[in-house]
Every structure is written in structure tokens, then in C-alpha cells.
């Protein structure tokens, strides 16, 4: 009781787990690696500036002034969609608070019954029926929830994302339920812009060469060469991507499902989310409701921080805001566990597998004997009496296949 606590108000985004970066006091949310995103911005802005500098004056005079105007509109739209995709919350599902995690654990234990010591508990899967199709909901060990259908855990951002499509390094963010339509519009308008610039570059070069010769034209407008090069390579990739996503939208599938072959048709599984009508599918994905963000990034919360180190170690299990995984520390220690809680975990849990619950490659398949009777807890530890948690290494299914 000797520690002096100072409470201060912090925004919730400062305490969110996961590997995101936040800017503008929580208004902007991106992945950590932003290098490729800057490259994307540079390529788009650079190519368009060259177009406006070299081609547009000539074309506006010799063809029509509408050409640069339309180019500007397209460029602004592309930038708006790119920034909207990159900066918005893709549909991150917040991690379960400790009470909810415990509740789920209790349910799982009740469902599993008594697993003999030495045997692995069954994989954590919940079956739900959606439109006469059995869909398996997997348990996420990091977020401690059963993932809703179509949600997936992004290992780069370390978040479960609803209707997870893929993590796009070009936009520097995950693409999920909330920003999929902006991503699609970005690829679509970028394709249009690329085709537009490419076409008018050719027109410009042809028109000028007729007057002055091909080599002189290139000398006068050296930017054209660069633009044509960039547009040529962009065309193949972006137009292809747009076509692919148009195909996915018409079937109401995500990239993630397509890659995994979830609804490929073998074993008579069909996509239960599809309306079996292309127009309806497109309308749902592109014109559906705009889902709100369930991550309250800019909400305020109290944070207790100790000023002086006091005689007893501050028990961060209670001190730190339970919104982060730090307070779920007693369940399984991982890299988020603050160091001062780790000794208490070691004390309360006798034998546990390696704390790396997010390891994708299974290390050893040695069955760790799991004690199903609740381990006796000391008085000082408010850890609830739950049986030791299973982890991916002890689960049958996740040991065989890679997690996430």
C-alpha cells in the first residue's frame, strides 16, 4: 500500500493490444510496416504529377481541356479511396476481457468433459449451421474468442478481423469488412486511372511524333517514358487484381476463403453467404450498410501508474487496464505479459508448455500432462480457479496444421 498511484486519462487506442500504429490521436489506424504504402503513394502521386506536367498542357490545347479535368477527378478519387482503405479500422474484433474469456473456458471444459491425463483435449471448434451448411468456428488463442464466421486472425497486425479478406502491404492495412468496398473502389479507379494515363500517353506521343519525330518528342517530354513504364507494369497487376476481386464479389467470397478453398465445391460444401444471384451479391458487398467500428479508439479511460516503486511489487493484474492482454496474463503468459506478473504465473502454474502460443510451426508434439483439477491458488493471487488453459501445442488439430 506504499505505492503512490497517479491516475491519468488516456485514450483507449494507447492501450489496445495488437501491432497497429495509430496517428492523429487515434483517428488513423494502420499496420506497423508502412514502407510499401509510402511506395504506393509515391508511385501514384509521382506518375500523375508527371502526367499533369508533360502531357496535359499539350493535350488540353490540341485535343480537349476536359482531359486534365477528368484526370484530376480520377486522381482525387483514387487518393481518397486509398487513404480511406489505409486509415480506417478494417473491422478488428476486440479481444475478450478476462471474464468473458473465463466464461468461454468454462463452457469448453464443460463440453469436453474429463480428458484423461496424458491425452490432448479435443480441438476447440464450435459448429454452427448457416443456411443449411455446417460452418466451423475456430477458437483464437490470442484473442480468446471463438471467431465469428468469416473472421480470421491477421498475424501481421495481431488482430482478429471480421470478414477478413487479406492483409495488403500496398495499402498498409488489413482489408476486412469495414474497408473492403473502399479497397475494391481503389483498385477499380486505379485501373481506370492507369488505363487513362497509359492511353493518353500513347496518344500524346503519336500526335507529337507526327509533328516533330519520335526521338524529339521523347527529348521534349522525358516524363512520358517513365509514365509508360510504370503504367505498363501497374496495368497487369492492378487490372488483374480488380478482375479477381470482381469475381470474388459476384460470388460473395473473401480472398481468404478462396485461398483456403473453403467453398470450392468438394464434399458438397457451398458458400452459405452467397445469395446465388450476382447482382444481389454485388449489392450486398458494395452497397451494404456501413458498419461501425467496435474498437472505441478515441474513448477515454483511466490509467493508474505507480509513481514510486513501493515495498511490494505493484500487482499489474489489477492495475493495468484490463482492455489489454496484460490482464489475461495469469491464463497464459506470452510476450505481452508484463515481467512482474510472470513470477506469479510460474508460481501458480506448475507445468505449462512454452508461452509462445502464437507459434505457427509446432515445436514438439510431446503431450504435456494437463491437470484437469484446478490447481490450488494462493491467497494473494486473484487468479480465478480455472483449469490450465490448453494452448495450440496441446490441441490436436492446431498442432498438426499451422495456427491461423
Amino acid at each position: 500500500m506504499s505505492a503512490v498511484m497517479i491516475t491519468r486519462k488516456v485514450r483507449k487506442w494507447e492501450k489496445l493490444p495488437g501491432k497497429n500504429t495509430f496517428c492523429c490521436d487515434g483517428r488513423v489506424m494502420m499496420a506497423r510496416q508502412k514502407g510499401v504504402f509510402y511506395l504506393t503513394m509515391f508511385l501514384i502521386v509521382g506518375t500523375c504529377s508527371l502526367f499533369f506536367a508533360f502531357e496535359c498542357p499539350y493535350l488540353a490545347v490540341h485535343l480537349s481541356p476536359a482531359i486534365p479535368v477528368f484526370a484530376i477527378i480520377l486522381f482525387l478519387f483514387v487518393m481518397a479511396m486509398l487513404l480511406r482503405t489505409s486509415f480506417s479500422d478494417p473491422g478488428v474484433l476486440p479481444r475478450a476481457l478476462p471474464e468473458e474469456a473465463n466464461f468461454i473456458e468454462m463452457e469448453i471444459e464443460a463440453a469436453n468433459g474429463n480428458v484423461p491425463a496424458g491425452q490432448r483435449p479435443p480441438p476447440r471448434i464450435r459448429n454452427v449451421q448457416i443456411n443449411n451448411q455446417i460452418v466451423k468456428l475456430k477458437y483464437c488463442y490470442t484473442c480468446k474468442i471463438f471467431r465469428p464466421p468469416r473472421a480470421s486472425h491477421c498475424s501481421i497486425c495481431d488482430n482478429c478481423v471480421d470478414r477478413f479478406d487479406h492483409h495488403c502491404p500496398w495499402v498498409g492495412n488489413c482489408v476486412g469488412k469495414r474497408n473492403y468496398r473502399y479497397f475494391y473502389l481503389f483498385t477499380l479507379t486505379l485501373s481506370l486511372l492507369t488505363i487513362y494515363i497509359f492511353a493518353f500517353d500513347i496518344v500524346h506521343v503519336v500526335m507529337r511524333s507526327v509533328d516533330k519525330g519520335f526521338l524529339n518528342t521523347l527529348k521534349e517530354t522525358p516524363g512520358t517514358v517513365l509514365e509508360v513504364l510504370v503504367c505498363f507494369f501497374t496495368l497487369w497487376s492492378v487490372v488483374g487484381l480488380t478482375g479477381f476481386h470482381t469475381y470474388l464479389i459476384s460470388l460473395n467470397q473473401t480472398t481468404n476463403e478462396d485461398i483456403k478453398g473453403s467453398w470450392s465445391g468438394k464434399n458438397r460444401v457451398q458458400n452459405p453467404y452467397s445469395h446465388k444471384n450476382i447482382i444481389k451479391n454485388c449489392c450486398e458487398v458494395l452497397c451494404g450498410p456501413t458498419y461501425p467500428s467496435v474498437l472505441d479508439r478515441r474513448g477515454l479511460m483511466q490509467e493508474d501508474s505507480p509513481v514510486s516503486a513501493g515495498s511490494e511489487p505493484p500487482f499489474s493484474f489489477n492495475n493495468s487496464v484490463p482492455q489489454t492482454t496484460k490482464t489475461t496474463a495469469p491464463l497464459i503468459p506470452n510476450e505481452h505479459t508484463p515481467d512482474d506478473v510472470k513470477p506469479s504465473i510460474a508460481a501458480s502454474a506448475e507445468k505449462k508448455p512454452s508461452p509462445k502460443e502464437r507459434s505457427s510451426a509446432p515445436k514438439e508434439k510431446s503431450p504435456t500432462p494437463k491437470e484437469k483439477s484446478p490447481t490450488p491458488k494462493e491467497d494473494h493471487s486473484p487468479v480465478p480457479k480455472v483449469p490450465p488453459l490448453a494452448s495450440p501445442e496441446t490441441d490436436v488439430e492446431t498442432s498438426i496444421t499451422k495456427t491461423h
Partner: protein
Amino acid sequence: MVKIKYKCKIIYEKHNKKSANLTTPLCVLAPPPLFTLLKRFQRMQGFFPTSTDGNMATEFHNLQELRHSASLANKVFIQRDYSEGTTCKFQTKFPSELESRIERTLFEDTVKTLNNFYAEAEKIGGQSYLEGCLACVTAYLIFLCMETRYEKVLKKIAKYIQEQNEKIYAPRGLLITDPIERGMRVIEISIYEDRGSSSSSSGSSSVSGSTAR
């Protein structure tokens, strides 16, 4: 960790501006302070109510005080119902922990009304198409000035939950948390016991829940 019992009268007065009997269970608190306490507690949902450390924020004091009159015994989580796809819908199955606390019909009414609200928000029809197309044409800048339909419905939901808490759930020692604060995954219902009827002062909710039984 030694639990510290506070002298709550002074703190309680400070928050409610009138003296109150500390043993008054939650259900007979007058509406304005109850509303304040409900609001504070709802904001505090994310915190451990059993935090026991030294100098705490005023709101911890308030929560401690709340526990003197009515202590958090257990929490029940109503899960999502995915039978109709990924639209937001909650199961109407009546949890056994609430059997002695509230009538089944009242509970089912609440969940069904919430489901209807969410269905209205996520409805794909003429209005959502219009909103989507208009927003697309303006490069989604229109959302800087306009509120989306979903946000409007969420406000209605928040108001409805608050009203249900005040009228039906708080008098029965229960408290519903808005699903949006839990990522729209669960409806969290906190169960309170009157002070003295459970030893819920130690450990967290699930332990106390089991010992309270």
C-alpha cells in the same frame, strides 16, 4: 492483497449529493443516483471490480461502494446466433443463471427487440443502396457531415438498453452492457447480489459465482 473496506458514506454523498443507507440494495436507490451509478458502472465494465490496490481513482471508490450495497456475483454472456449468417443476432436461449432473477418473457423480449434493432440497421434495401451510392459519388466525404443509418440505430439501441436497465434489470439486481462495448460479440449481463449474501469480495466473478451458489 489485503482488501480495504472504505468508509463509503462520505464518498457516496459526494457522488449522490444526499446521505444514503449503505446497506440499501441497488434496487431501492432513487432513480437519479441509480442512473449515475449505472452509467459509471457501465463505463467501468472494462475494469476489474475487484481491484484492491492502494490509492484508486474516485470511480474505483464508487465501484467499491457499489459493492458494499450490491456486489458483483457473476456475469452471463449471451452469445451470437449465426443461424442466419453473419448478421448481428443474439441467442434468445434463457441462461440458467438468471432463472431466479428475472422472468423468461422479459429477458426474451429484450433480446428480441435488440435483434430487431440490429436487423433494421443491417437491412439491405432501398435506403441502404441510396446511402451507399450517394456516399460513393461524393468519395465518402459525405460521412463527415452525415451520420450513417447504422450509427443512428446504435444510438437508439443505447437508449433502449439504458431504459431497460433502469426499469427492469436494475430493480432485479442485473445490469446489461451494450454489445458494442464488447465488440458486438456478446450481451454481457452482470448479476449483483445483496451485500452479506455472498462472499464475493475475493477473486473475480466466476469464482464468486460458484461460491455464491
